[in-house]
């Protein structure tokens, strides 16, 4: 660490996103982490970066993010802005005539959240970590009488590897591992009694390198009992169970 002054802090703060993404070189990371230990302010930045990443993933999962084609740059954009401005102005005039004047719109609390809340009214999301403690209770429990219409399972099980497939904390050349261990992942729901396959997801690629999300529709339609949620990784020539969780469906 050369200096602990403000400009050095700002220099490090610009690296926050790359640090959380694991994109810093060995020397950059060493310097950044020494700073991290010295500065709660930088640690708070890192924490907020984590929240931002997670929040965006969660909002996307709930369908609250506006997805559009990449924005064009250059001359055409001016026309688009002019047309959009005209449209917004026209819409504003129409709305001002139609909408009752006693109601006001609260900034930042409009379309996404309101629409999203209705959409996820009967969705339950469960995150399952790869580090599990000891105990004799199921990872996920559902009561048939209160079952959601969708059970979204997000297992945190994707291991990142080096380009050569090695599992290391640092790859050759000092870069961090970035490649998911398997190209695709799927989830099976297997009833323990009789070992019968009750459901299998479609295969999916990890989003943002490590995020998986499997949606089990109408979990209340399954028989009461204990099930295994098995996550399997697939490469072209190999498949392996990478995690197994316990789901209990109870009558009441």
């Amino acid at each position: 660490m050369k200096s602990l002054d403000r400009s050095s802090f700002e220099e490090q703060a610009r690296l926050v996103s790359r640090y959380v993404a694991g994109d810093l070189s060995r020397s950059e990371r060493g310097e950044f982490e020494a700073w991290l230990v010295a500065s709660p302010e930088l640690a708070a930045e890192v924490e907020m970066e984590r929240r931002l990443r997670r929040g965006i993933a969660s909002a996307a999962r709930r369908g609250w993010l506006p997805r559009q084609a990449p924005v064009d740059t250059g001359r055409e954009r001016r026309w688009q802005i002019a047309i959009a401005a005209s449209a917004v102005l026209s819409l504003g005039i129409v709305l001002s005539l139609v909408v009752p004047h006693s109601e006001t719109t609260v900034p930042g609390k409009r379309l996404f959240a309101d629409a999203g809340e209705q959409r996820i009214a009967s969705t339950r999301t469960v995150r399952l970590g790869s580090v599990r403690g000891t105990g004799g209770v199921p990872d996920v429990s559902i009561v048939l009488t209160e079952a959601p219409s969708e059970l979204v399972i997000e297992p945190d099980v994707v291991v990142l590897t080096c380009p050569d497939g090695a599992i290391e904390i640092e790859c050759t050349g000092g870069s961090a591992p970035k490649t998911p261990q398997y190209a695709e992942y799927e989830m099976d729901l297997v009833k323990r009694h009789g070992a019968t396959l009750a459901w299998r997801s479609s295969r999916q690629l990890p989003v943002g390198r490590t995020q998986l999300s499997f949606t089990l529709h109408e979990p209340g339609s399954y028989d009461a009992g204990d099930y295994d949620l098995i996550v399997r990784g697939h490469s072209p020539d190999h498949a392996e169970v990478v995690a197994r969780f316990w789901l209990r469906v109870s009558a009441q």
Partner: protein
Amino acid sequence: MSALSAEEIERIVAAALTGDRAAESRMLEALRPGVLAVLRFGAFHRWIDQEDLTQETLHIVVERVRARTIDDPRKVFAFAAATARNLALNAARKMLRQQTVVDSELVDELAQNLETEQNDLSDSDDKHLAQAVAALLEELPTERDRQMLIRFYLDGTDKQQLCRDLGLSPKHFDRVLMRARTRLRAIIERRAPHLALVPRVIAILLPLAMSFTFLVRHFGSW
């Protein structure tokens, strides 16, 4: 602790290096959030118990400070970061070694008797966070910034590619990210303050508990 600047923490560590026990306690309190952050965002953060390793790291740091083998506070920061990283690597190696045999009957049997780790956010908190991010994206001044964040964080498009596609300079890119974090913090503090408070509360309470442990161990009383 979040009010302390890096310079203030450097002074505290410098005092601890002289053998000042009160400064030592303050040092533990001051270093904890950063050590925890190193462990939370290291390459194998999902395979380690971050709280345990933070405590272990701080134990090693305080022993080293007492031994007077480090004379520069900045070296203490680097030492703490390197210690945290090495402990994480060892813990992750152990965990990943175990995971390679997850297909065996025995491990499957054991896995069925295990429960999941505690997630740091409940469903409700996760929803609050998603709402805060949706609000943040709505508040952004341009569609370009909005698409930049979504493509960067969700699609994993890299910075150079985004700068090319969206006609941004790298500095502008960094500024948008920094502003987004600052704005998200403000929204969270307004809408779901406990999401912003949790790390701070832990940052205060756990070092106090650690200080208590050290004092009882070394002096026999609080």
